[in-house]
Structure formats: structure tokens, C-alpha cells
């Protein structure tokens, strides 16, 4: 489903973010990408969303070579990918309902469908009573769940979460993890870039460890520390 083949990424200022990274992810898999800050986790996510292009190597998702994607093919790729960004990327001037609806509106889904799907997804993340609230009126944990709701609304094949528990309290973090497991059980492939050791250790899922832009380990049932 997802293949990183000897991928390297060097930024114009000379920083090497990733070096010779190779791994594969099967459909329906749950995978943690772990490592300290600056290890290359966010770059890896940006390569998946095709915000960045590798300097060397190839990223292939659902048989599509991301470097070659242009126009509609790129749109199609992004539409099949749900992303929860580290800073959530919520629109401050839109309500919770409108933020989630946006993900469906840009895909051209009819209004009648949107009116059905959005309350359902908001309820799935426990925000059914916050539909008319703006992001500034939500707590950190609620904002994060709203970001999940937006990523899930179009029913993506792959969900990528970049540090989803980074800015929230432990209780919210655990509720987010349970949500990720639930999404994964529904058949969605889940990739989580994190440095939340407790969560990684507790779940005992596949772990790829990054350090200085290189893969230092890839364990089936891994822990945060080697």
C-alpha cells in the first residue's frame, strides 16, 4: 500500500531530513513512526501528503509514484489520504461543523450527504455538542478530535497523524489513541508520527524508529525505546 524506497530528503539550506529510508506498509496496518524532535518524522509525513518531493528515491502509495503526480492525480491522492497535522490546521473563522464539512465540500459531495455525514463524524469523536463552536472555543483535546473528524469525514484509505498527542493532556491523548484504534479496526491504514513513549509502549504495534533521518529499527510489536 505504502512504499518508501531508499528515500532521501535534503532541504535547500543543506539540512538532510531523511536518508536512505526504506519500508513498506500493508493495507489495514497500524504503524508508529517514533524518534526525537528533528528525527525526520514530519518530513516523512510531508512526503506522504506530497507537500515535499524526495531528493532521491521513491514514495509509492496505492501504486502511484508520488513524485510523478500532477493535477487530478495529485488531487485524487490527497483525497484518499486523511491527515491530522501537528498544529491541526483548523480554520479559525469556521465552526466545528464547517471545518469538517469543508473536507467534503472540496470533494464536491452534495449538501444532503454533508448534512448526514458531519454530525455522524462529530459524534464519533465526541464533539456532537460542539458543532457550532469555533476552534478558539474548544479545548486542546477537542481541537485535536476535530482535526481527526475532518480527516475521517471523507473516509480515507490511509490516515496519517503527525504528533497527534503533542499538545494535549494525557486523558485526551488516550482518548485520541482509542479513536485511532477504532479507525484502524474499521479497515483504515493508520500511520502515527509521535514521541509519546507511553502510548507506543502500551499499544504494542509496529514501530519504525528514526534518528537523524535514518531508520534505526523496524519492529513488528515494538516499544518507543529499543
Amino acid at each position: 500500500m505504502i512504499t518508501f524506497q531508499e528515500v532521501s530528503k535534503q532541504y535547500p539550506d543543506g539540512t538532510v531530513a531523511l536518508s536512505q529510508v526504506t519500508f513498506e506498509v500493508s493495507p489495514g496496518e497500524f504503524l508508529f513512526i517514533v524518534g526525537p524532535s528533528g528525527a525526520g518524522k514530519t518530513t516523512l509525513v510531508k512526503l506522504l501528503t506530497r507537500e515535499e518531493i524526495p531528493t532521491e528515491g521513491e514514495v509509492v502509495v496505492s501504486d502511484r509514484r508520488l513524485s510523478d503526480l500532477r493535477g487530478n492525480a495529485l488531487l485524487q491522492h490527497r483525497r484518499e489520504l486523511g491527515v491530522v497535522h501537528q498544529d491541526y490546521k483548523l480554520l479559525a473563522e469556521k465552526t466545528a461543523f464547517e471545518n469538517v464539512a469543508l473536507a467534503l465540500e472540496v470533494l464536491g459531495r452534495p449538501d444532503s450527504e454533508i448534512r448526514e455525514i458531519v454530525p455522524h463524524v462529530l459524534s464519533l469523536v465526541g464533539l456532537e455538542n460542539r458543532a457550532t463552536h469555533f476552534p478558539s472555543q474548544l479545548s486542546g483535546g477537542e481541537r485535536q478530535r476535530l482535526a481527526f473528524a475532518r480527516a475521517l469525514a471523507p473516509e480515507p484509505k490511509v490516515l496519517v497523524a503527525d504528533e497527534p498527542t503533542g499538545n494535549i493532556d494525557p486523558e485526551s491523548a488516550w482518548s485520541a489513541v482509542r479513536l485511532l484504534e477504532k479507525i484502524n479496526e474499521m479497515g483504515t491504514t493508520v500511520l502515527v508520527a509521535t514521541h509519546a513513549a507511553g502510548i507506543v509502549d502500551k499499544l504494542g504495534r509496529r514501530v519504525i524508529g528514526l534518528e537523524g533521518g535514518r531508520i534505526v529499527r523496524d519492529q513488528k510489536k515494538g516499544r518507543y525505546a529499543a
Partner: protein
Amino acid sequence: MFGTKRKEDMLRRIFRNAFSGVVRHAGLSLTSVLVITLTFGATSALALFAFGADKILDYYESRALVTAFFKDEVTEEQILDLREELLRRPGVTEVTYTSKEEAFAIYSERFKDRPELLEGIPTNILPASLDVRTESLDDLPEVAEFFEGNDLVEEVAFYQDVVERFRNLVNVARTSLLALVLLFAAISTVVVLITVGLIIHSMEEEIEIMALLGATKTYIRLPFIIQGATYGLLAAIISGGILTLAIPSLFPFIRSFFTNVPLPDPSVGFQLGLVGLETLIGILIGSLGSWLAVSRYLKV
């Protein structure tokens, strides 16, 4: 059926995004609308000037004439023969004979309030004359030459120069106004470009998010183009309103300077045509400015 509904929903969203953009950035939007309104002010002034000047010019051209004053000894019969000869000339439309007595009657009527100017003047002191009008101003010099070579004529008065000068003045004013309109149109386009550019800059995050969610270029770009076109449309509506209110008081004011000229108010058709033209120009200016901004600043 489903596809049509989907397209309708998409189109409605694009327009909703465009109009909410106008409202959300009310200050910037107002700047653009006012500058385009200024362009329409100049356009309206040009159109009304052209309308009024044409009417006034037509009037003066139709009044332009050559007047021949005859020597005292010339008889009425000789003058009337000459009148017949003139009427046979191509281009001559009207030849009016004024006898010495009629000339004195006109003079007396004009100065009836100043009797000192009439005292002791014999009734035959003013010369008899022929006033000749032609189809075109260009025919007048030939008529003047005809009189100048005639022994019966004492003096020839020829008003072509005055009309020509007025026509030249109108042409210069019209060209200057047109240049002003084009200058304002260019400034308006640049102002819309800057306005939409600033709005795009302020919405960078939203645009980035939409692109990451898989929005098409059209979905992201079209609202900005519609936004620019809306500025033009709003400016045309404001300008049309001002025009409709101004004309009833503007034309009586202009008429007060040209008391003899029959200068009618522009017809409703003329006003509607002008507002329609301005609407079209407004939408074009707005769309062009925002299209330039989108091409230049929007990277998706």
C-alpha cells in the same frame, strides 16, 4: 440527476465563498469598489459630454450660415434672382431674404428697451441681406466665394470658423476624457489586483488547507475571480444610481449656458445602455484584476 445536483452544490459553494470573501474583507473590498466607481464617474462624464456636445454641435452646424449684405442701390428683384440661383446650387438647403425694412424691424425689436439706440435712425439704414445655409459646413466656403465675387454684395459674414473651433474644442475634450477613462480603468485593474492579492495573502493558511484536502484549482481560484467581478458589479450599481439621480439636475444646469440650444435630457434607453456598458466594463476590470492577482500570488 445526481451529477447535476453535485455541480449545483459546488457552484453555490464557489459563489458563497466569493461573496463571504467580499464581506469578510469589507474594507479592502470597499477600496476597490470606490476606485472602479471613480472610473465609471469618468466614463459617465465622457458619455454625457459626448451626448451634450453632439447635440450642441449639431445645433450650431445647422445654424451656421453665410450672410451677404447688399449695397444700397441693389433692388429687391436683383436679390431675389440671386436667391433663386443660389437655391439651384448643390448643398444649399435654405436661403432667406431679409429686406431693409425687415432688418430694421428686427433691430427695433432687439433694442426696444433701449430707445436711445433707435432715435433718429432712418428705417432704411440697414442693408438687405441673404442668409444661406448648407447641408454641410464644408459647403459654406464656396457660397462665401460666390458672394465675394459678386458686385451687388457689400459685405460677406461667414461663421464657419466659430463652429470649426467649437468642433475642435469638443474633439480635444472628448479625447482627453477618453484618456482619463482609460487611465482610471488601468488604475482600477491594478487596485483590484492589489486588493485580491492582499486577500489571498491573508487567506494563505485556508488556501493551503483546501489544497491539502484535495480541492481543485478551480474551487480555490474561482471565488477570487468572482470576488473581483463583484467589485465591478457593485461599482456599476453605485455609479448607475448616482447617474440616475444626477441627470435631472445636471441637464437643466447645462441648458442654462446654452439658452438657444434645444438640449434634451438623455433618454432612459441611453441611460440604461450606459449603465449596461459600465456593468460589462466593471465585471471585465474586476475579473481581469483578480485573475492577474490569482495568477501572480496564488500558488496551488
